[in-house]
Each structure stands twice: as structure tokens, then as C-alpha cells.
């Protein structure tokens, strides 16, 4: 099992450019999450999904869109990147079973917006 994978690992964008971050998990998890991590702060939830075809807003959703067309993939899109979106982005997944509430994380994507 690869667990949770993220592509790309690193990207530099110019202000106004768009990009999509891909998260894939092979654990058949129902729940998937996108977080951003900024220096000196904990993770902040951007969007999440409780199953294929569903998405919901987290704490900091503005400027981002997501899609969950397939259960194993969760895409995070930036339509018009801004310097404030420079961050490290983490994807996570977890099982539907409430007794298994651990989240499994990908290695992260470092995004620099100039």
C-alpha cells in the first residue's frame, strides 16, 4: 500500500496562475481532507469530503475549489493563485468507522506563489 500520495511535491506559481493538487489514497477511505500549514500555526482545514461526489467547506475555503469524482482521489484547485496561498498543503484520509478516527497524511506539497 502506498497510503496517501500527493502530486506535485513542489511548485512555483506566479500570481494569477492556476493549478491543481492531486491527492490519492489506496486504503478505500471514505473521508478525505485538504489542509494548509503555515509557519507557527497548526493545520487549517480548507475543504473535506465524506464520500465520492461530496465536498464541504472547512475553516479557510476561500480561493480554493475541490472535487471528489472518484473515491480514491481528492483534487484541490487554485483558480487564481495569490501570494497568501504560499504554504505547505497536506492531504489526509480516514476510514468511515468512527472507532478508527486516525487521519493518514500524505507527504505534502510545497507551493510558492510569487
Amino acid at each position, binding site marked *: 500500500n502506498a497510503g*496517501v500520495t500527493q502530486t506535485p511535491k513542489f511548485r512555483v506559481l506566479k500570481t494569477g496562475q492556476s493549478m491543481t493538487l492531486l491527492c490519492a489514497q489506496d486504503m478505500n477511505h471514505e473521508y478525505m481532507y485538504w489542509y494548509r500549514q503555515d509557519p*507557527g*500555526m*497548526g*493545520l*487549517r*482545514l480548507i475543504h*473535506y469530503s465524506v464520500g465520492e461526489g461530496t465536498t464541504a467547506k*472547512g475553516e479557510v475555503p476561500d480561493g480554493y475549489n475541490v472535487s471528489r469524482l472518484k473515491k480514491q482521489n481528492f483534487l484541490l484547485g487554485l483558480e487564481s493563485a495569490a501570494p497568501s496561498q504560499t504554504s*505547505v498543503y*497536506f492531504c*489526509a484520509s480516514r476510514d468511515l468507522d*468512527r472507532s478508527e*478516527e*486516525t*487521519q*493518514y*497524511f*500524505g*507527504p*505534502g506539497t*510545497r507551493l510558492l506563489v510569487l
Partner: protein
Amino acid sequence: SQQGEEDPQALSIQEGENATMNCSYKTSINNLQWYRQNSGRGLVHLILIRSNEREKHRGRLRVTLDTSKKSSSLLITASRAADTASYFCAFMDSNYQLIWGAGTKLIIKP
């Protein structure tokens, strides 16, 4: 903000000593989890304690939870250089979302 608060922000100790990190929160919780992050990498789950539990052990890790004080602590005993990392607490709120603390950066000096 509902974010958890952790202290200390940074901790530097000698190898072999014990390390204690604390986490506080403001809302009611379903459980509280601790994660570890090596520099620049993804987070790895360490231990979960449920709201009806007071103490839990896993190897050299000991977690306590005091729901009356809305606080938790993580103790790492007999620290090793490989324990150098950032440690995050995250509490699961009533909506089953994880709310994260800002982390404690732990440095173990050989």
C-alpha cells in the same frame, strides 16, 4: 478561533531526559490525538485518547486527558535523538472535525 493551544512552543532537552508537552482546548471533544511531524514531512499519528479516558500509554508515550480543565499532556520518556520532531495535538470536536494546535518543536540533544 477554536484552535488548540500548545506549550511550550519549543523544547530542547538532553537525550535520556523526559519531554512533556501540553495542549489545551475550548470546546467539548470526542477525542484528542497527538501527531508527530518530522521536518518538512507529513504527520504521523501517535496516540488517541477518548473523552472518557484519563490516561493512555503506548511504548515510551504517555498521554493524559483532563476534561474538566480541557487539557492534555504528552510525555515522552527516555528521549532519543530520533524523537526530534514537531508534535501536534488535535482534538475532534462535536462535528467530527480535527482542530489542531500550533505544535511543539522538540529538539533532543545527543
